[in-house]
């Protein structure tokens, strides 16, 4: 099922997520598993911070020379017997995939995990053309048979319980005995393995994403743990790689740096179980491998992002650490963000790809605690980029009128110290007086958003500015 854009309904989505007990259980586990595992893996490698700097520099250098690296990459892919296709829009990318499938008379297509395929809603287009896509990553397979969508870019089915998955397997795998025991996650995995094994061996075309593309050698790389991506790309007649243009890196040495930060930040691994480097189709004498090798490079607005203040987001290597460490993602999960990319990454990238007018809530769904930037392996200043979107939202008059006028009134007040200081001093005193001995308010006009859930503490003593002045005087009499 493709992802329908529901970012404009973020608030409703978030409320529903907060009431979803199963989701809340999964989210608590992310905070423990992914966060702790990352921290342990990072602690084991003294060079980690230096690697992050280097990783950032590699991506910055590549983005600044992206046109030339794309040309170099393309030459090497051709040399190896592969083909590179460019796609400006998702529709164009889907059309290229479908043309290849039709030419090869493909009926069944296996798919490794690809966020770009989610971005283009490829499965819908394959189905509409009479081609059956089969997701082979366990998480994606579960989502496909449920008609569900990913809620995390690394762990797509993280919002589901094993009971839900068991019910889906019983519903869909009808030819298996109803009396079988599926209580343990291991038995669910074994069943998926057996079911998908047959599909791997009969699929006509295999589609994967790419974590990186190497200009030096014309190589595409996938970093995975299950091995489904490798079976997907090795067994069929053709391997199609769906990637976005910013996946380029110059050399194999550069990739080595990036995989050292990717595995650790994504899941606390030294490296993923399988890191696979693919260069062109089956060669003369090869006993296996795909007969054709295609790379589809999707732009979908990224080339324009290079121009402005959002270029930094193109460094992203999709590790998911920003969402794992985000208190907002941790409260509402991935679906609430309403499109392919959740969390802080989504809050910056979604407005860029679908328009700020469709995703204005996302950059506002932040506490600006800064943890995402703290853990980002390529040091993307995510809070700063979210602030840029807020500014744009304000400038383009997309924020609601009370917010706009409120902010304007506040600005008029805050930029005039001669008015601000005495007024706040007075207000503090008045509030303290009104609160009386209780020292807090159960209800306060204009602050109902706060007092509906908790008391508002009354100010105690002088304003910050007054205290600061006094402290300075004490320090330097």
């Amino acid at each position, binding site marked *: 099922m493709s992802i329908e854009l529901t970012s404009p309904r973020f608030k409703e989505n978030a409320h529903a997520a907060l009431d979803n007990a199963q989701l809340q259980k999964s989210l608590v586990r992310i905070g423990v598993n992914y966060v702790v595992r990352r921290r342990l893996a990072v602690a084991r490698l003294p060079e980690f911070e230096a690697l992050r700097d280097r990783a950032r520099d590699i991506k910055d250098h590549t983005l600044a020379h992206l046109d030339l690296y794309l040309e170099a990459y393309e030459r090497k892919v051709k040399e190896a017997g592969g083909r590179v296709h460019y796609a400006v829009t998702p529709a164009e990318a889907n059309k290229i995939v479908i043309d290849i499938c039709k030419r090869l008379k493909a009926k069944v297509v296996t798919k490794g995990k690809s966020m770009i395929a989610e971005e283009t809603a490829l499965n819908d287009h394959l189905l509409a053309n009479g081609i059956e896509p089969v997701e082979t990553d366990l998480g994606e397979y579960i989502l496909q048979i449920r008609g569900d969508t990913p809620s995390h870019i690394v762990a797509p089915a993280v919002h589901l319980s094993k009971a839900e998955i068991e019910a889906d397997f019983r519903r869909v795998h009808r030819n298996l005995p109803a009396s079988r025991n599926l209580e343990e996650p291991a038995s669910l995995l074994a069943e998926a393995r057996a079911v998908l094994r047959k599909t791997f061996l009969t699929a006509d075309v295999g589609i994967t994403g790419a974590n990186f593309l190497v200009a030096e050698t014309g190589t595409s790389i996938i970093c995975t743990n299950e091995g489904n991506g490798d079976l997907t790309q090795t067994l069929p007649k053709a391997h199609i790689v769906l990637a976005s243009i910013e996946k380029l890196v110059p050399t194999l040495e550069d990739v080595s740096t990036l995989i050292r930060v990717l595995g650790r930040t994504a899941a606390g691994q030294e490296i993923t179980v399988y890191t696979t*480097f693919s260069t062109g189709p089956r060669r003369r004498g090869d006993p296996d491998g795909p007969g054709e090798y295609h790379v589809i490079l999707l732009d979908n607005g990224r*080339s324009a992002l290079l121009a402005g203040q959002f270029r930094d987001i193109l460094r992203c290597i999709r590790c998911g650490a920003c969402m794992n460490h985000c208190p907002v993602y941790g409260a509402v999960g991935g679906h609430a963000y309403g499109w392919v990319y959740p969390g802080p990454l989504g809050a910056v990238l979604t407005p860029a790809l679908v328009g700020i007018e469709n995703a204005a809530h996302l950059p506002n769904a932040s506490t600006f605690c800064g943890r995402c930037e703290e853990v980002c392996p390529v040091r993307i200043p995510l809070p700063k980029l979210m602030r840029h979107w807020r500014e744009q939202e304000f400038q383009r008059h997309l924020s609601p009128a009370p917010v706009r006028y409120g902010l304007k009134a506040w600005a008029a007040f805050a930029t005039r110290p001669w008015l601000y200081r005495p007024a706040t001093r007075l207000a503090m005193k008045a509030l303290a007086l009104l609160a009386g001995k209780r020292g807090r308010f159960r209800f306060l006009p204009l602050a109902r958003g706060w007092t509906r859930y908790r008391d508002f503490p009354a100010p105690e003593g002088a304003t910050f500015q007054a205290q600061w002045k006094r402290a300075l005087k004490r320090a330097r009499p």
Partner: protein
Amino acid sequence: MSDRDVVLGTIRRSLGVDGHEPARQLAVKARIGQHARGIVPKRGDVTPAARVKLFSEMMQAVHGTVVRVPAYEDVPAAVAEYLRGNNLPAEIRHGADPRLRAIPWRNEGALDVVEGASRGNDLTAVSHAFAAVAESGTLVLLSGVDNPTTLNFLPDHHLVIVDAADIAGDYETVWDRLREVYGVGGMPRTVNFITGPSRSGDIEQVHLLGAHGPRSLHVLVVGKP
């Protein structure tokens, strides 16, 4: 205008370049030509013996198993022992690698050895690694008739032979060795870095072994480093 022209054109407009600047072209050429090393963890920069030890520890930490074998003529017995220990039939499949062909499999009379790529019905495959990396306990396998890629993923049990002398400290050393074999900028169709048996954490974040690839990965380190 083709999609290619649109994409490259937009990139150049965004960057404020036309693609013909000699300084930029030189920078890209130099970067690719020099393929300079970045930050290489010191962890792997140890004596050859310590590298073998580190490789074994890292591999075992991700649930691979490792045995040391003195020489190639000892491999059949070590393989037979693994098969017996795991209640597996005495059948293996391997590729046309001369090093694998030269192994005296007949010493283990009961062992059935077939050659070629897998079609998905083999329980046990034996491959020869091009190299290994101590830093992360990673095996490096190359595609081709010698060691077909299907053997790395379809069988339930994957046994991989690696020469102790081929265990490098880091990935960068392996890239240099690969350039010696395939030329600068050249690559085999597939390079597989394999670090443990296949696994998944997609059901309630519980780590399980044996997702779609091998359920077990067993490494035989041959000889002295």
